[in-house]
């Protein structure tokens, strides 16, 4: 049978290896995750496991032959700030920033903080293929190519279903902020769950 029938469970381990530094490779994308990503939260607002989110983002970048580093931003859970901090750490200047609930942004260091290359604001509509495409596009920007923007989806009924939960997740993520901690480099290990 194909793997579609039985989604494989994977575990995500994020180990801090030290303060994040500015990259020198022009062919890298930096992924920045927010304070609560992976721990204590383990999935996006609609239940996509963080292990899978990161795996797909990184796969999208790898498929384009571009390097990837993952960092955690501790002192803010503002997506634009998370993404822009990562862009300034990135050797290519291109970054992917994401919040625990799934909201994602592709940023570039020369853009104003509140601007972006691509923004995926509706976290409930982001699934694994979208994260793969986001990674792929970020890598293509890093290579100086012109990818077609990942189509964004819209669902007017996301408000009644998800708005309050998003607010709740946002508040929880805020509680994990460490105001005096700088961004740190992460070593990512994704393994198949036992059994």
């Amino acid at each position, binding site marked *: 049978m194909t793997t579609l029938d039985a989604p494989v469970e994977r575990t995500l381990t994020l180990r801090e290896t030290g303060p994040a530094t500015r990259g020198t490779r022009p062919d890298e994308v930096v992924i920045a995750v927010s304070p609560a990503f992976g721990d204590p939260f383990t999935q996006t*607002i609609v239940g996509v496991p963080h292990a899978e989110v990161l795996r797909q983002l990184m796969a999208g970048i790898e498929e384009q032959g571009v390097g990837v580093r993952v960092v955690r*931003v501790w*002192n*803010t*859970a*503002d*997506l*634009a*700030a998370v993404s*822009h*901090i990562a862009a*300034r750490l990135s050797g290519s200047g291109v970054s992917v920033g994401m919040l625990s609930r799934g*909201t994602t*942004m592709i940023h570039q260091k020369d853009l104003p*903080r*509140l601007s972006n290359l691509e923004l995926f*604001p*509706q*976290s*409930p509509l982001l699934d694994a293929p979208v994260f793969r495409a986001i990674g792929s596009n970020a890598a293509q920007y890093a290579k100086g190519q012109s990818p077609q923007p990942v189509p964004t989806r*819209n669902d*007017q009924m*996301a*408000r009644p*279903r*998800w*708005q309050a*939960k*998003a607010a709740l997740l*946002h508040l929880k993520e*805020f509680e994990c*902020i460490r*105001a*005096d901690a*700088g961004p740190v480099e992460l070593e990512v290990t994704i393994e198949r769950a036992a059994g």
Partner: protein
Amino acid sequence: MSSPTAPTLTVADYPLSVNRPELLRTPTGKPVTALTMDAVVSGELTAEDLRIAPETLELQAQLADASGRPQLAANFRRAAEMTAIPDAEVLSMYNALRPRASTAAKLTAMADKLEQTYGAPVSAALVREAAEVYGRRRLLADDEPEDAATAATSPDAVTPAVAADETAADETAADETTGSPA
């Protein structure tokens, strides 16, 4: 022009366009009855003729006072002062009042200009008051560098991205699961 000692209006005079049209003039001095279709077609009227005159705003301020709405009346009096300010300058003054957009000196200069150039003491007072509060609440331009790198350590850094989208039509779905706030 309406005389400086215009009658004090009562709520019974409202609506002026129906009950007291003789008091209404355009900023160019035409009576409101001159705003006819013939005048439009012949090209006699310009966009300037369809603006409100400061005297009219004062009349409406009197009506607001008479109906127990002092804040609304004050708004109309500031507005009367602002009729003299060109559109672009009105917008730039508004932008200067945004948080961390101006230094104390700049706001003071703006207040002086309102008072001296435009004869707008009520609006000038509003700007001076803003300067005082901004100073106390650290909302003047010097209080916080724009630089995003330092945002990390500022209280501002713990604000969500959604606020940024406010300037696009406030009611459109700009953020998160749905719209930006209100």
